[in-house]
């Protein structure tokens, strides 16, 4: 890291406590064009953007993970500490620090602020969310604070762009001094810092009304031991409805788009390997995953609103007791909730869990949450073998079976978590200590940026890992080429794999066609339906007609125990290579994904077998 290098552009970093409004300030300063990547070697997100300075130049601005202290208690804090101290391999220390403080919580935030200022780097303080402080009845004196801290203090309201030009100006000024030697200043102990923070906060607060913050009143309802959980479950019900109902037209449109593109390729590209590769491999494979984008976007919309409003911390609070029962904490709730749409964003969301063992356990059980890819499989099998009868007012047997499959996944996950926390992910009972942020109205722009980032991460994954995996699977299904009169499925490498699988799967009631369908379903679970369609030679281009055809065939050819065993299999089986690939990425190695695959297949085998033999014994 050479500070004299004239070519190297200076870097500015936002640093501050969690819940200081840092991310909103970052969004306001950089706009939507942000670069998100991981810091090398760790799964902590690095957010960077460009900050325009008044004299026409621009600087790279990075949003450091929120920290309460440099005495790191989480991977996020560790990254922030190493980075500002210039100890992070492959990333130079920032030249200018923008210290973000919550104006309404000065006494607390000034403790970490002193740690940052002790570094002696060019620093500017953004006294953020002054509007919320005013709402709470606080009138502040930025000048007094500036004098006490010895750096410029700019009052800002990130969400309303208030104070941003002044902040940019102050950053430019600090930037001009960035090449001077850093001279670290006073060094205090924690109690001394706390005392100093108390005095500085007192000096900076001009007047304080006795008005109560709205949090107390709202929390009295939302955190009420009885009403709170009822409201939370009501909200979850609405979210689930929305994820499945609102997404349908968009998913249909995407599917139509993929279909049209496929038809276009079929028309324009001459028959042969290239055309098959494009239509059956690329478009069919990646298209199968991309159709989940609307569901993921809708789910994340709700999650982002819950996060930005401050409710997510309350949801974690309400769920903590339940999660503690299986050795997890309230923080695992959000990733597991996401996994109902798709385990991929769910596993990525585990980054917010500070405890390593908690996080690992959550990653390992995320695939047990019934993701939306299982729905097509469940729907076809249930329609084929479960009679459409009513067993009570408004309760149909088919719906009940579907509900039971969801419950089986959740109960399975809880039991597995309990076992894992006592065996491979053993550790001290996980703790749950978190700050409950103040309530805020989420801002549309921040939501839009957040949604765009999640969607982009998902699409990029679909374009890379998932792309490669589906292509490999397609090659397995397409080669070697079938002789005339022989089905391609039978002749292919995948067919040979299925032949090898069948003797293993026969004892749990699976027929050969089912063994065959499981191989391509590794790309995406719902492919099992089209694979069954292929093997039963249901000749229909339209997917829904194909599904109807499969339903008839299954109803005619499968026994009830066999069909139930197939359903039980899909509750547990890790039938999704993309999830395994993401688990590898998030655990930095093959050890845990391998473990996940083995335990899930073992569970699937045992439960499918139990279901089959149980059903046979009952004479079903």
């Amino acid at each position, binding site marked *: 890291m050479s500070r004299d290098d004239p070519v190297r552009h200076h870097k500015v970093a936002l640093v501050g406590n969690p819940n200081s409004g840092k991310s909103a300030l970052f969004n306001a300063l950089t706009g939507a064009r942000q670069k998100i990547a991981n810091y090398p070697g760790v799964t902590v997100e690095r957010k960077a953007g460009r900050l325009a300075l008044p004299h026409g130049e621009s600087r790279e601005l990075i949003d450091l993970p929120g920290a309460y202290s440099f005495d790191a208690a989480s991977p996020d804090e560790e990254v922030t500490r190493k980075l500002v101290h210039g100890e992070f391999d492959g990333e130079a220390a920032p030249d200018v620090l923008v210290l973000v403080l919550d104006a309404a919580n000065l006494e*607390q935030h000034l*403790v970490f602020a002193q740690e940052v200022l002790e570094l002696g780097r060019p620093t500017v303080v953004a006294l953020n969310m002054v509007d919320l402080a005013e709402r709470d009845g606080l009138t502040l004196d930025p000048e007094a604070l500036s004098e006490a801290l010895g750096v410029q203090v700019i009052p800002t309201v990130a969400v309303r762009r208030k104070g941003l030009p002044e902040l940019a100006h102050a950053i430019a000024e600090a930037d001009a001094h960035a090449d001077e030697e850093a001279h670290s200043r006073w060094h205090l102990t924690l*109690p001394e810092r706390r005392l100093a923070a108390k005095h500085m906060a007192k000096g900076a607060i001009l007047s304080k009304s006795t008005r109560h913050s709205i949090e107390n009143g709202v929390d009295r309802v939302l955190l009420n031991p009885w009403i709170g959980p009822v409201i939370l479950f009501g909200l979850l019900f609405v979210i689930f409805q929305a994820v499945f109902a609102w997404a349908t037209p968009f998913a249909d449109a995407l599917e139509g788009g993929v279909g049209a593109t496929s038809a276009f390729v079929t028309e324009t590209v001459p028959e042969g390997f290239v055309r098959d590769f494009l239509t059956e491999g690329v478009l069919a494979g990646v298209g199968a995953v991309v159709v989940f984008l609307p569901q993921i976007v809708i789910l994340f919309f709700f999650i982002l609103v819950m996060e930005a409003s401050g409710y997510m911390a309350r949801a*974690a609070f309400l769920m903590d*007791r339940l999660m503690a029962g299986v050795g997890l904490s*309230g923080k695992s709730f959000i990733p597991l909730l996401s996994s109902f749409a798709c385990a991929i964003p769910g596993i990525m969301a585990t980054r917010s869990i500070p405890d390593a063992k908690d996080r690992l356990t959550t990653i390992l059980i995320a695939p047990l949450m019934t993701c939306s890819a299982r729905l097509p499989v469940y729907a076809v099998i249930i329609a084929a073998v479960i009679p459409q009868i009513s067993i009570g007012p408004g309760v149909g047997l088919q719906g009940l079976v579907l509900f039971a499959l969801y419950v089986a996944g959740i109960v399975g996950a809880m039991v597995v978590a309990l076992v894992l926390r006592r065996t491979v992910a053993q550790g001290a009972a996980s703790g749950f200590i978190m700050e409950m942020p103040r309530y805020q109205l989420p801002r549309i722009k921040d939501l839009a940026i957040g949604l765009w980032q999640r969607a982009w991460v998902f699409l990029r994954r679909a374009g890379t890992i998932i792309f490669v995996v589906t292509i490999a699977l397609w090659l397995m299904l397409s080669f070697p080429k079938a002789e005339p009169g022989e089905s391609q499925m039978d002749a292919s490498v995948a067919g040979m794999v299925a032949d090898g699988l069948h003797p293993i799967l026969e004892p749990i009631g699976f027929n050969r066609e089912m063994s065959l369908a499981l191989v391509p379903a590794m790309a995406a679970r719902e492919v099992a339906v089209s694979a069954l369609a292929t093997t039963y030679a249901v000749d229909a281009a339209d997917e829904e007609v194909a599904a109807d055809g499969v339903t008839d065939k299954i109803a005619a050819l499968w026994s009830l125990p066999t069909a139930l065993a197939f359903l039980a299999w899909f509750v547990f089986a890790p039938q999704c290579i993309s999830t395994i690939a993401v688990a590898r990425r998030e655990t930095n190695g093959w050890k845990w994904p391998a473990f996940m695959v083995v335990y899930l297949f073992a569970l699937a085998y045992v439960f499918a077998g139990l279901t089959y033999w149980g059903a046979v014994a009952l004479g079903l």
Partner: protein
Amino acid sequence: MTLDAFEHEKSARITAINWAALAEDEGKRLKALGVDEGAEVSVIHRGVFGTRDPLAIRIGRMTIALRRAHALAIEVEPA
């Protein structure tokens, strides 16, 4: 008296914390949040569905969630 047993919404001063009963990271986290000897706190929410776990406490202008196990390690007296 421990914080767990302290009266609801009444101000309490922390007299001692049994750090040995807390995991290292949890101790660090509590300290960073200002939960330390001498601090004034009050319990404002407690439990879900009739359990006494977890708790929400107010310290300064912040609300912090923690578990009963943590509250049992925190000795308090009326402030």
